[in-house]
């Protein structure tokens, strides 16, 4: 039963990791950009939530009404103002520019909020749980996070496959020059993709801030979790990313059972095993690009 409990908690944690990963997966899919600052943007969202909750006293979940559009706006501006300039055949500019941004965001957060660990208070929601049997309890909040991840991915799938914008995303991903011949402004479409990605990041950051302690320095680790979920799931598949997040979460939960310091290491090792055995991930998209 103890193990079953660990696995259930791991699955729910995987929902959070899937939320970390969704934005990364989306922007890679649309514009082949790997954003090294992704984790730091998650942490930025958490601190924006903290500032708002501390400033106004609203519940963290209510603060999302503001934080989500603000992060989306930051995403649009970031893409239009900086990242669009780095796209091209050479992989160095986007990598090094987002790496630089990562360091800048971390240290600006450090200057503004100090290195102290923080937590978003969510009241009764933090501890409320449903008891299943004698030994297993499912926290309401982890469950909400997991269901949000499923919901976000379902919505993104609908956007990608049922809307004009989604068709433009897929066309631009295939061939941006020909997409321009359809009247698509790639710079705008890329910026919208980043806006969408950072809207999800806002959700992920706020959830993370309620669930765990955070500080300006933890961004890179979130990037690595997100990255691992994407690769385990297989590039280009959002449902695969969810599965990747769950596998990572379960591996970490099992690792923590074995050894108190083994949680994060177990997650990384699970990722490396998948990478060695199935370099294309567990659920790769079948169609070749």
């Amino acid at each position, binding site marked *: 039963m103890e193990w079953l409990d660990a696995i259930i908690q791991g699955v729910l944690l995987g929902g959070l990791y899937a939320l970390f990963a969704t934005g990364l997966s989306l922007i890679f899919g649309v514009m082949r950009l790997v954003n090294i600052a992704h984790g730091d943007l998650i942490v930025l969202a958490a601190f924006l939530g903290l500032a708002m909750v501390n400033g106004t006293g609203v519940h963290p979940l209510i603060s999302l009404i503001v934080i989500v559009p603000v992060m989306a706006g930051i995403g649009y501006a970031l893409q239009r103002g*900086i990242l669009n*300039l780095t796209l091209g055949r050479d*992989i160095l500019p986007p990598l090094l520019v987002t790496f*630089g941004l990562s*360091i*800048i965001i*971390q240290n600006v957060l450090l200057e503004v909020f100090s290195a102290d660990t923080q937590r978003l208070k969510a009241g009764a929601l933090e501890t409320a749980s449903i008891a299943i049997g004698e030994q297993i309890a499912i926290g309401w909040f982890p469950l909400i996070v997991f269901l949000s991840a499923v919901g976000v991915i379902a919505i993104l799938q609908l956007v990608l496959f049922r809307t004009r914008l989604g068709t433009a995303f897929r066309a631009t991903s295939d061939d941006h020059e020909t997409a321009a011949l359809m009247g698509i402004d790639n710079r705008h479409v890329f910026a919208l993709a980043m806006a969408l990605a950072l809207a999800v990041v806002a959700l992920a950051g706020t959830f993370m801030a309620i669930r765990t302690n955070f500080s300006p320095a933890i961004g890179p680790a979130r990037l690595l979790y997100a990255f691992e979920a994407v690769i385990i799931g297989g590039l280009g598949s959002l449902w695969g990313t969810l599965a990747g997040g769950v596998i990572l979460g379960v591996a970490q939960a099992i690792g923590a059972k074995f050894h108190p*310091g083994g949680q994060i290491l177990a997650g990384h090792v699970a990722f490396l095993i998948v990478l060695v055995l199935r*370099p294309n991930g567990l659920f790769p998209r079948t169609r070749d690009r």
Partner: protein
Amino acid sequence: MSEDAAAYRVARGTAASRYGALVAVAGLAVLISLPFWGGRADMRTIVEIAYYLALAQLWNLLAGYAGLVSVGQQAFLGLGGYALFVFAIHAGVHPLAAIPLAGIAAALFAVPTAFIVFRLRGAYFAIGTWVVAEVYMLSFAQISALGGGSGISLPAAVVKGIAAGRMWRETTIYWTGLAIAVGAIALVYLLLRSRHGLALTAIRDSEEASGSLGVDNFRTKIWVYIVAAFGTGMVGALVFLTKLRISPEAGFNVIDWTANVIFIVVIGGIGTIEGPIVGVIVFFVLRELLADFGSWYLIVLGAAAVLMMLRAPQGIWGLIAERFDLRFFPVQRRLVFDPASFSFVAETQEEDKRKP
């Protein structure tokens, strides 16, 4: 036709490279003599500059030439550092002798690491190397014989064994630092001038084309990766020989050993040997200027690197070289017209002589 062809030869030396070599030798002689007239603080700073220069050269070899953008070189730096402690404490090896051994140890670890990370391409390779570095960090934190998460110090007996007396210890470490920096530059320079150098430049300029020309990219890249790990491991041993204490956090630190190095190379100029030299100077000047401003120093450095990448991806050295046509490390092969062996038109020779 054949006579005309004889008038051309493939050359690599430039006037700048010959004067540059003289200046470099003179400068190096001054640096070597510094312990006899300089201060100890100067020596410490120069050792730090030296190991950053070596790291920058090695990262530039990976990213600038082999197209391997690694964000995980801290893995090999930490491994080299820990190897120094293992060899010196547990095997009784002289710390100086442990430095090359640390390089070899890092290179040995690089083989299985490459097996994993080479499954990822481009940007994903970058993050994959980072994951592996984290795995090494978390693993070393579990080894209690090496102090676990809190780290381990070099025992006084081992430190005393480096050389007799504090002055000689510091001088020895100082000279070792100079040797490693010069060695890293020489290694990259000679590698680029060798047959592999052509292959590397081909990879940098066009991965697809060089693949179809029969350059075995994969093997060349693996070798470069292992050589860079070797060098980085040696630097790691040197770094922690100066610090006398290592912990997983310090040994596998991504900011210290990768972010700073990337900024140095990008600001100085990626894909050239001169670039990292310029970059390391800029880095230390900025660090001095911003010493009192805490994390603003990293913000400024990061912003400078981002701006450089957006506005002048060739870096400061690239801008200088473009403007003045300077090359101190002539690794490019250039076609040079040699009037002496040109038997056809005498006037050409005269004209050529008049040109500066």
